């Protein structure tokens, strides 16, 4: 399976994400933000960092990079897109996943180890995860406070758009509506996630729960691929 990790000016988790994607057994390559092409990868990852310094508003300036048109096409043609942290902010600004990420309610940058509950086991992102298992990984952001108007939140929930929530004992670190930590689009293949699975991909680093998630995704992509082939 082929993974492309987009490098925006100011991305700073691109190399970490490439490393983790390779550990997960994929062929991973960087995608420069000015090349309007995702080079036929199966999964595009928008990594964490501070694209364009997060100036003005996190993710807003990166959204206009030439590669984003290609990412949009990739998504519309059923391709997989995962936005992690800053990548989630870019996806939200680009309207590829619903919602907005506002300043943390603490008004501080928060680096913490949190726990995620998996809200549905049947999405390509989660089907490989041990049922009932919470995932431990770090967050590191100043603007991760998920917002959507109440009505739209209900709609999001009822269509199963919520994949991950912050769970006890640490709980909700940033004031996100309904403890939401990760969402997907209506097709279920574009996912935005604030916590960093790539930073929890080796026991040596304190947790390899993130690798569970990445492996689950690799499996999900493979299954989807076979489905297409079969059709």
């Amino acid at each position, binding site marked *: 399976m082929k993974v492309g990790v987009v490098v925006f*000016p*100011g991305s*700073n*988790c691109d190399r*970490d994400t490439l*490393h*983790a994607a390779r550990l997960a057994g994929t062929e991973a390559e960087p995608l420069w933000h000015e090349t309007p092409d995702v080079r036929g990868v199966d999964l595009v990852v928008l990594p*964490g*960092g*501070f694209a*364009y*310094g*997060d*100036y003005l508003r996190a993710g807003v300036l990166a959204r206009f990079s030439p590669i984003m048109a290609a990412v949009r096409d990739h998504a519309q043609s059923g391709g997989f897109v995962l936005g992690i942290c800053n990548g989630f902010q870019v996806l939200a600004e680009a309207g590829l996943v619903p919602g907005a990420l506002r300043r943390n309610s603490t008004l*501080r*940058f*928060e*680096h*913490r180890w949190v726990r995620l509950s998996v809200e549905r086991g049947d999405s390509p992102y989660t089907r490989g995860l041990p049922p009932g298992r919470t995932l431990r990984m*770090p967050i*590191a952001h*100043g603007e991760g406070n998920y917002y959507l108007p109440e009505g739209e939140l209900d709609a999001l929930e009822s269509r199963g758009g919520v994949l991950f929530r912050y769970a006890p004992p640490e709980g909700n670190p940033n004031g996100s509506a309904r403890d939401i930590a990760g969402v997907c689009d209506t097709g279920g293949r574009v996912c935005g996630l604030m916590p*960093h699975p*790539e*930073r929890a*991909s*080796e026991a*040596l*680093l*304190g947790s390899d729960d993130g690798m569970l998630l990445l492996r689950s995704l690799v499996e999900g992509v493979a299954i989807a691929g076979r489905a297409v082939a079969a059709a």
Partner: protein
Amino acid sequence: MSVVAEIATPLHRALGLTDEELDAIHDRLGRDPNDLELAMFAVMWSEHCSYKSSRRYLETLPTSGDDVVAGPGENAGVVAIGEGLAVAFKLESHNHPSAVEPYQGAATGVGGILRDIFTMGARPIAILDALKFGDPSQARSRGLVKGVVRGVGGYGNCVGVPTIGGELVFDPSYGDNPLVNVMAVGLLEERHLTRAAAPGPGNHVVLFGSATGRDGIGGASVLASATFDETSAAKRPSVQVGDPFAEKLLIEASLELIARGLVEGLQDLGAAGITCAVSETADRAGTGIRVDLDAVPRREAGMAPFEVMISESQERMCAIVAPRWLDAVLEVCARWGLPAAVIGEVTDHGRIEVVGAGEVLASIPAAALTSDAIAFDRPARPPTKTRAAPAPGAPSEPGEGLPERGMDPGAVLLALLGDANLGSRGWVTTQYDETVGTDTVEAGERAAAVLRIKGSPKGLVAATDAQAAVAAHDPWLGAAMAVSECARNVAITGARPLGVTNCLNFGDPTDPEAFWRFTESVRGLGDACRALGLPVTGGNVSFYNASPSGEILPTAQIGVVGLLEDVEQRVAPAFRRAGDVVVLVGETSPGLAGSAYAALAGTAPDDGPPALDLSREAALLHWLAAAAREGLLASAQDVSGGGLAVALAESSIWSGLGARLQVGVGSTPSVDLFGESPGRVIVSTEPALWERLAGSAAAHGLPIRRIGLVDGERLIIELVGEGATGAAEERGAGVADALDVAVRDLAHAWRSALPRALGEEA
């Protein structure tokens, strides 16, 4: 030049140069300098750039070692770690700018030290911040703490370098003059080691990064050369604003230029801007440089030549480029969105020439600005009356900080854990990205920080420490103890310390007593490094750390980097298993002055700081590495701030495991429980390994004693021996016969300490 010339006092004095220095400039030029030249000399001959008062003492430091690849004189020290890899590290201060504008001062401090690292060809992999502030209950201190911490995080988090350790110390002496010392660590392939030199006449001088504005005109270099006075707005520099986004692009572009071999030399722009960059690189290579002022990209119109030459605009780099690589270099910069321009050419006449509008505006021998800058032999005199205990900042009334003597030592322990100087640093560290880079194995709230190295079994360990409260009594001892404590903190992980960097924060060098504190500290630094076999690979000096309210404690900040051959074998300070044997290695010696206990309880007027046995410290370092290698250590914890009791409490808090212990106490039990005499560690091990552990310690000539077992959910320390009798209480020794506190309560006191001190319950 009118801008400057308008000032009433003679120009050279307005620029911070003495008449003696003006004469020295005349000697070197063989003529009067013009205004532009004078401005260039003024910034280059500031303490900050010239080390004119400190150079002669720094030369006494041990700097050689088998693995040292680059030492003092380069932007950062570099030590080889095998497999063709090397580690670059350096500590630097940004004290005065942080006092003016805490957020930007701290942020640009981080930016500056990171540039020193990647200028060498190393990718920055860690930041450690050593911060010192005044009384945390004061509004001004709180504002500074919050601004500085946000600034360090705002910059480090954005560039994507994890902040994994540091220090946070409160002492009234730092109230108007906070210390912001930042250490950065980088990893490089030795073959990519790059020098900040300008070889090859005919090579281009390329300036890339941010455009040049009026930032910090008379900033760091001039500001740092005058005692900071809050009220004199006149001395306020046009504040430098940091742009971590630009820095991130600068890191990537610079490392690509180096990896592709496109540059002959690389130098960051810091204090004294272009003037410093061109004169240092030319002087190191024995060449000269002609600077074409009109080619420098500007952010503002109407800048005077001197403004362009000394501007301290952030996020700029200077590359020496062979003509055939120029296009490639410009392409790399363009791709990373960085403006770049050829602003000059390397020449063979050894001079720095500044050309504007076709005219030569300045022409100075490069050496005169750097290696041949003026140097002084300042008078140093020990204080006529050495300061008596209690330590500065300690209550003048003994006992004031604690309930009356004869009290329960458990209450003392809780008071110490709840103290702003000893409690959890979580309030700070949660504002720093500790895990970006996916190499962080241990972030330094508990002990030294540990990083793995991708593609290698090895690990890097880093720590920073100072012993200012001890230095207030004896600057030699304070500096030497800081080196030993820092090395010990690295060694308890099982790592072998590789080298030392330092940042020397002192008062006015023209005040003989203040200067004596400096010279004694350098002596202590050198003696300790020689005794421990550690080279000093770099550092920084910050003078004039005084304010109308007085001088700061003499603060020799020490940074140590160590190497773990196998990161999987690292040892952590938290207890591991119930049933493990708890062991004290080393001997407790008297002397409470300078301790956290003394700050709370005061000390006997005749008491002094504890003694330091450097040869035993050396033995301890070697033994820790050996014991870790042999797998004898389940945990290892350094005994320092708060003494034995606090060290044990931390091992319990971090593991949630209690312990049942017996500690022999002499005539002054507070010394045994809370004294901070160096050379001690607490380790735990499986009962089955105790014999071997004892044997290996003995073989290293180290006293070692079993003091109990890891067990239960309470920390119980039974006091035995002479001091443990009721008589001890009559003597006001300050203890009952046992300490018995639930680990939960210890943890609560420790966690709530800092938020409470800063008025941020919750």
